[in-house]
């Protein structure tokens, strides 16, 4: 299954995002952002299914939850996604 990541500048917005997305029925996992995805130093991300990414981004924007970037991660390869 292809998994994507939404990165956040710190844990609090990541947790808020987790709440928003879980309430909408999405499965998300809160975890530390892999170092390669984090430009400014430490952060947290939400891992979710690739099919949910677009809807997740929309929901977060609608709920005023800021995020940094979107990434796909497959077999060790990381690619930034621009919607």
């Amino acid at each position, binding site marked *: 299954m292809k998994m994507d990541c939404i990165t956040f*500048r*710190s844990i*609090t*917005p990541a*947790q808020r995002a987790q709440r928003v997305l879980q309430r909408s029925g999405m499965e998300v996992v*809160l975890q530390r952002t892999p170092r390669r995805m984090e430009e*400014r*130093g430490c952060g947290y991300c939400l891992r979710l299914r690739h099919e949910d990414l677009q809807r997740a981004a929309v929901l977060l924007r609608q709920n005023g939850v800021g995020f940094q970037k979107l990434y796909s991660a497959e077999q060790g390869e990381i690619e930034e996604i621009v919607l």
Partner: protein
Amino acid sequence: MIYLDNGATSFHKPPAVRRAVERAMLCCANPGRGGYSAAMAAAETVFRCRETAGDLFHCDPEQVVFTSNCTHGLNIAIHTLVKPGGRVVISGFEHNAVTRPLHALGADIHVAGRRLFDWWDTLDSFEKELKSGADAAIFTHMSNVFGYILPVQELSMLCRQYGVPFVIDAAQAAGALEVDFEKWGASFVAMPGHKGLLGPQGTGLLLCGELPEPLICGGTGSVSLEQRMPDFLPDRAEAGTLNVPGIAGLQAGLSYLRRVGVESIFQREQQQAKKCAAGLQKMGYRVFSGAHQGGTVSFVPKADCQQMADFLAKRGIAVRSGLHCAPLAHESAGTVETGTVRISFGHDAASAQTAAFLQVAADFL
């Protein structure tokens, strides 16, 4: 012990608070740092407290900054809004947690409203001062000495009308009166976790309507490559490790308040304070009571106020006497020379407490 010093700290906490602290010490590591289960458990504990506080006080979880006490929060707020020599309007009943930081900044302090329990005087005096402009206004929601409940809704509107950012000291009000951050439109509202919110000592909340200036700089677990403190909440004002066991206990306190209802707690506290005041007045004590008063009563005994407090303590009744870290309030009421004995009821206010206290007060005469 009959504990009537809730203005200093709440002593008889709900059992869930103690249990939450202990559980956190067993299960929670450092939040916002690692990614393993104990770190994530800590993070969840902390965020849940932000959410509960946000629900209770009508703000977003990110606007809830954890502090070590109300004084800490007030210092953050004051240092954000007031530069050295800045013009500040405060009420006549402010605590040293407000006046000392202002003095340290060399602020040009204007005191507005010195008459106890008099909303008209408070509002009129504030408006006169605000018309001349100010860098900030700071006022308590409820006086820690006299229980005077200031007209915060109306003061908030005045400050917004004159474009003056303002800080509300909710030290005595949080857990007793409604705190509506969204409606008030304050720049900051500071409160301790360990008084009316029933959490452990070492906790506090600062609700932030604007980005604060960091009082302390250090690690936040975020944007670590940058050497400036983060420019977003809550990280900007939370350098260093949070008091996670304390926050867990605070969350339990907030949950208790949500379940029991702040209004019902206030009614009980106020009812006992009124009975207390009436009983003391009948005995001939000089009592400060009036409209717009919460669960706190101050009075002046004929003997030294500390002597009376000691007498009460020997009979198992805990009160505070003296100036209560609020000399300005005592100046306003004319009690600097004598000080007062203060009774402050808490969430467990009951007639039995009042009856026991009045019996000993009668014996002291």
